[in-house]
Structures are given as C-alpha cells and as structure tokens.
C-alpha cells in the first residue's frame, strides 16, 4: 500500500531512556550456554549494553517523565496537543488506554483525541501515518506521537534468543500541520506469519495462570514461559532479508528518489548482523545506516527509529533539513517505510528516566 501526504512535518523529538544500564556480560550468567558461544554471538550481533526499566516501571511512567520535561523546559505547550497517539505493546492496562492514563496524569485538555495503537517495530511509521491522517482535520493542528515499550518485563532473562537484545524506551514526536512537505510512505502486513513474534499468554485467548507462568526449556537451551515473548529468530531474519529490500525499492520508485538524495537511513534496529546484511543487500553504504542502537541501548521496539534520529542523527536534524528514509519491520508481521524531509527540528534530545 502506497500513501502520500503533504500536510504535516516532524517538529521536535524527545527520547526517554531508563537510567539503568545492564551489560551482556552480566546477562550471560543467566544463560545455559557455554561462555565461549555467547561471546562469539556478542561480537557478531553487537551486544554490549542495554537500558532496562527497574521493577514495576510502566510505559506511562517513561512518557509522563518525558512530557513533564518538555513542559517545564517550555519546549512544548501542553494545550497545543490536539491528539495523543500512543503506540505500544506493553500498555499499563487492558483498559483504559495508556493514552488516557497519560492525558489524565498530565491534565491535558479534554478537547482532544487519545488513541492507542498496538504495534511494535514498525510502530513509528504506522503511528506517523496515523498522525498525518489526523492532521487533515482543521481542528487537529498538532499531534504528539508516543512510541513506548517496556518489553524487558515480558522477556525471560534465561532466554538468550531475546533477552540480550531487548531494551526499554519511550519517544515523543511532535508532528504539526504544515503544507508543502512531501512525505511518501508504504506498508505491508501479513497476519498469517503472526506467530513469529508473539507473547502467547495474557490475552483472552490464553489468560495468564500459574500454568502459563511455568518456565520451561524451549528445546534449544533457552528458557521461557508462555507469558514471555517468543521469537522465531530464523523466521524473523528471513522475513527481514526477503521483504524489506523490495519495500525500500518500492518507496524509492514511488518517491522518484535515489540513494544519492537520501542523507541517512533510519531503520529499525534488530541487531548489527541483520542490518549489515540488509545494507549490503540494498547496495547502500553501511555508513549511511546507523546500526549501533542494540549495542548502546538495546532493541527498544517501536522506539528504535526515534532512537537513531535522537542520537546518531540529532546534530544534523537540529542544524538543517535533509531527506531521510525510515523503515520499520516486525510484529504482525508488519513492514513499512517512509521518505520525508526532516529538520531543522525545534528540539531533538535524549533524557534519562531516573
């Protein structure tokens, strides 16, 4: 599906990272694998440190901390927010929505739209598309797009498949009405492959119970329960390598842009190995594809693209306008990309959640 917009632009971006940092060398103590095997994997995948929430910190806690920073530093007027979109797979509750929790805690105005979207690694693109759609209404002049996940709470520390790469984070992107900014997007979804990334228990299909909480050997030396995230690493890898290159080729064709027009590629960050292979397959210089988010912060799901923007690319985004290609791919399965001019941003920064 191809989508075209010319009614909005990214104005500001804040990244909120948990202050607690954990190292892969510490994680290794929980794994049932020989140390030498884990160390080899560390090198290839780019594992080093990841930022994780402590104890019972919820998605809304990170987001509220971020908004309060923006309000107190006068970077954002809270009454200017006409819509709040929260993209998350780790909501505070089944009901109400996490966007409603945030609206209430921050005492935002009532004449606004609060909306949750259940999406993961493609969630920044999907949320951005939704924000631009809302901005076509006269009464919605500013959307706050929040991406947030605390997935470390749903990954078993004894699961070497998933735990070392997971990170927690939140981002707040301010998207304003603006005419003349051309934005191209495309997306695809395939629910037939939904089990490649899944938390089997905890919903209505299989409610959490003492039985689903039992931690078991998955057969390959990884331990997890049905309440934990389960990832078919091989299937996900193959999905990315086969589906994403045509997606990027399609967005280039749709926008009539080429690699020389693109200042940088802000891709979802599954791991260094996968991104190196992807860059090579696309025939683009690895230097134009930041790929160290897993190494520095962990794969923080829908926040990886904002993490690239707010850390690797922030100085450029604050200084001047450039054309960027964004792509997200993961749970659903969902894959989506976007080409748009970004900059100069009013703010683009990173803060820690204590």
């Amino acid at each position: 599906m191809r989508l075209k917009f010319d009614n909005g632009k990214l104005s500001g971006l804040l990244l909120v990272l948990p202050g607690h940092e954990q190292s892969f060398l510490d994680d290794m103590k929980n794994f049932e694998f020989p140390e030498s095997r884990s160390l080899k994997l560390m090198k290839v995948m780019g594992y080093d440190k990841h930022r994780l929430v402590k104890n019972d910190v919820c998605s809304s806690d990170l987001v509220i901390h971020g908004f309060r920073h923006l309000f107190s530093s006068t970077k954002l007027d809270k009454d200017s927010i006409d819509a709040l979109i929260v993209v998350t797979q780790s909501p505070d509750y089944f009901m109400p929505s996490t966007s409603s929790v945030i609206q209430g805690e921050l005492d935002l105005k009532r004449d606004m739209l609060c909306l949750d979207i259940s999406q993961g690694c493609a969630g920044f693109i999907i949320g951005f598309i939704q924000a631009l759609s809302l901005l076509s209404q006269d009464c919605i002049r500013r959307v706050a797009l929040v991406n947030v996940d605390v997935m470390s709470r749903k990954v078993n520390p004894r699961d070497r498949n998933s735990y070392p790469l997971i990170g927690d984070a939140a981002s707040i992107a301010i998207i304003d009405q603006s005419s003349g900014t051309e934005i191209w997007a495309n997306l695809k979804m395939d629910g037939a492959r939904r089990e490649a990334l899944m938390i089997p228990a905890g919903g209505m299909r299989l409610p959490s119970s003492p039985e689903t909480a039992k931690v078991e050997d998955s057969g390959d030396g990884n331990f997890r329960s049905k309440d934990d995230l389960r990832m078919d690493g091989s299937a996900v890898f193959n999905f990315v390598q086969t589906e994403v290159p045509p997606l990027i080729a399609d967005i280039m064709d749709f926008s009539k842009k080429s690699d020389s027009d693109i200042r940088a590629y802000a891709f979802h960050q599954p791991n260094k190995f996968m991104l190196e292979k992807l860059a090579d397959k696309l025939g683009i210089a690895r230097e134009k594809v930041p790929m160290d988010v897993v190494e520095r912060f962990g794969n923080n799901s829908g926040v990886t693209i904002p993490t690239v923007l707010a850390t690797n690319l922030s100085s450029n985004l604050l200084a001047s306008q450039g054309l960027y290609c964004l792509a997200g791919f993961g749970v659903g399965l969902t894959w989506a990309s976007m080409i748009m001019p970004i900059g100069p941003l009013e703010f683009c920064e990173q803060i820690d959640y204590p």
Partner: protein
Amino acid sequence: MKDQILTILQDTRPESDFANSENFIAESLLDSFDMVVLIGELEEQFNISIDGADVVPENFVSVEAIIRLIDSSR
C-alpha cells in the same frame, strides 16, 4: 573444503558430533544464533559474502548444503 567446514562447525559447537549427523538442524546441533556465528566464520575464511536471504535453516543442514551455499555466494 569439507574438512575446513567441519573444523569451523566444531569450533562453533564443540560438543556436537557433526561428522555423524544426518541433519544439523533437525538434530539440534545448530540453532539460528549458531548460524549467525557460522556465517561470520565462513565469510571470513572463504572470502565470500552470504546474501541475507540465504540465511535459512535449509542451507545449514549438512556440510554439503554449506558447500553449495559457499559456491553460490562466490
């Protein structure tokens, strides 16, 4: 080449008996993360670049399958 690949496999998973295996994946001698480590070693030692789309279990079930993968990656 066969001996070189077997050596790389044994270095990756010293506890596994690759020489007497019919299918490395079905017999759980290799998992998806071992495949990733293995690719790094194969690319370095054979000076090749393996296409990401070729990183599928079928290409790692046996030494013969790995040889075919190396040949197609040259």
